[in-house]
């Protein structure tokens, strides 16, 4: 028992180390949003000027809202469509299934630069053009493979006998899916959603090709800003986003269980 406790303690310590590694750049990012030098120059000089000028920067704020909107919608659409597809790939055997699964990798493997260029040409050719709708179309497509891969990984731990048992008890397909399968794969679906959000929210290349003046997203604005002088306003907006999402997430964790606790 003692060994178990020591091992568990080590495990907890390890998680703290990992969080330290993950948050090191985030903390620096936040710190630099309160530093006076626009070039991250040290020694540190306290200021809140960057937050004040961020408040005046309508373009950056509008782009931030666009990013949030697009990421939320992308998450919703791709999680639903992706989970459906993973269910089908899990449940049914058919010719060409391996091919469909392999098709998930081109969007991940081909550098986004090429995919973005290809989308630009194609959307332009068929009349969709550029703008927020085009960005949304692209983001969902980029997020879908991630959702499908993640949800499928969770589904592999699912015993098909459970579905059959429910069926034999008279449940129809819909009931089986909603009452038996979905609760089991819910952690996977949520994880897929988190992936989709991240893919969309941090997506720069594809958004860059598909955005128009006035219809841009935050990463596009950030990339354009570094040409001139990357002001810590960018750090300020990123800090606000991290702090707000952290608060939202912790609240969610407080009131809503999704870890698939048994």
């Amino acid at each position: 028992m003692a060994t178990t406790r020591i091992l568990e303690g080590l495990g907890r310590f390890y998680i703290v180390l990992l969080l330290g590694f993950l948050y090191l750049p985030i903390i620096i990012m936040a710190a630099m949003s309160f530093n006076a030098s626009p070039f991250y120059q040290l020694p540190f000089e306290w200021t809140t000027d960057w937050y004040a000028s961020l408040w005046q920067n309508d373009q950056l704020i509008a782009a931030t809202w666009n990013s949030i909107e697009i990421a939320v919608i992308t998450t919703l659409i791709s999680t639903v469509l992706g989970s459906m597809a993973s269910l089908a790939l899990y449940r049914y055997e058919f010719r060409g299934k391996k091919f469909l699964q392999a098709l998930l990798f081109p969007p991940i493997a081909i550098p986004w630069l090429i995919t973005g260029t290809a989308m630009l040409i194609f959307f332009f050719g068929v009349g969709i053009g550029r703008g927020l709708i085009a960005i949304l179309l692209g983001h969902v497509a980029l997020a879908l493979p991630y959702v499908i891969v993640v949800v499928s990984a969770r589904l592999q731990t699912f015993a098909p006998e459970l579905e059959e048992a429910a069926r034999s008890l008279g449940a129809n397909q819909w009931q089986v899916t909603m009452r038996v399968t979905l609760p089991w794969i819910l952690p996977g679906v949520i994880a897929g959603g988190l992936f989709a959000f991240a893919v969309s929210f941090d997506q720069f290349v594809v958004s860059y090709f598909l955005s128009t003046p006035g219809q841009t997203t935050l990463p596009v604005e950030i990339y354009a800003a570094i040409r001139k002088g990357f002001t810590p306003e960018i750090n300020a907006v990123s800090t606000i986003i991290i702090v707000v999402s952290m608060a939202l997430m912790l609240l969610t964790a407080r009131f809503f269980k999704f870890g698939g606790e048994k």
Partner: protein
Amino acid sequence: MRMPRLTAFLTATAVFVSAFTLAAQAAEEVHVLNWKGYGADEPWAVANFEKATGFKVVNDFFNSEQEMLTKIRTNPGLYDVVMINAAFNDQAMAGKLIQPIDVSKLSNYADIAKDKAGSPMLNHDGKVYGVPWVWGLTALAINEKSFDKPPTSIAEMWDPAHKGRVIIRDDAVEAVQFGALASGQNINDIKDMEAVKAKLTSLMPQIKTFWSSENDWNQMVASNQIDIGTYWSGSADRAKTHFKLPVSLVIPQEGSVAWLDAFSIPAGSKNVAGAEAFINYMIDPKFYVEWVTKVGAPVSANTKAVDALPEDAFNRKVMGSPDVAKRIQFQAPVTDEQREKYLALWQELKVNVK
């Protein structure tokens, strides 16, 4: 601040609506395509222009000349004004991407230096395809903390004392032309590529990293990580005057690469009158002086604009001196084949240091 329009998006009709709003562009808008943070998008300048003319300016940006060409190619009719490096004007004209400009509509055009206005790169068949705006140099800049007195030769970059503290731009054409200068050749007619390659190969171990934006350079100097490197004249001036960084420009005795930026009107522009008004405003001395004072800028092609600067201004005193004029070589158009050859060489050099 704008609130999210989640619900609007969720309706399928939004797809069509957006397609139409994209097509129906208001006629009184002037769509400008330029580098970000390069004069045309200064908020005060946009406000002044809008107040004076009643047109509304919509800025869009590119991050490389190739991207600029791609943007006009794939968005016919979207842009009214585009800023094109003179060396790319040829390519844009040959691709029928830009239209001739009626310079009689531009009251400030007459004040543009004759050598710039008459540049064969901007004039084709007696028609003007580009209005010279500003020019500048790709020269050297130094971190003042690392030098007691400024160096005078390009050879300083190869000095072992600066090992690991040299920076150059990650751009094949710029790197090869720099190698040409260092090996005493004409940048527009490089005869001895082997000499260029040898020069650059020996430069590689000196290099800390490659820069791609002004911000890179300024951050590196601010954290005292570099001594010397290639830099643009306007950017060096801005780093010194606007950001108060210890940066100064050096125009080496071997010479420097000069470039000329010009405004053109894309073919299919829906607001040619607005475009003309905007270009005329951009070459106006009043705008230029304000730009230099508030932000820092390259040298105006308009002689009256330069004369309006204080006598000791960098852009007037240094850049205008006959001694400098003798040392600079203006960049001529680079063909696609040359560009690919330069890139192949540049990539090979970068792979060899791995």
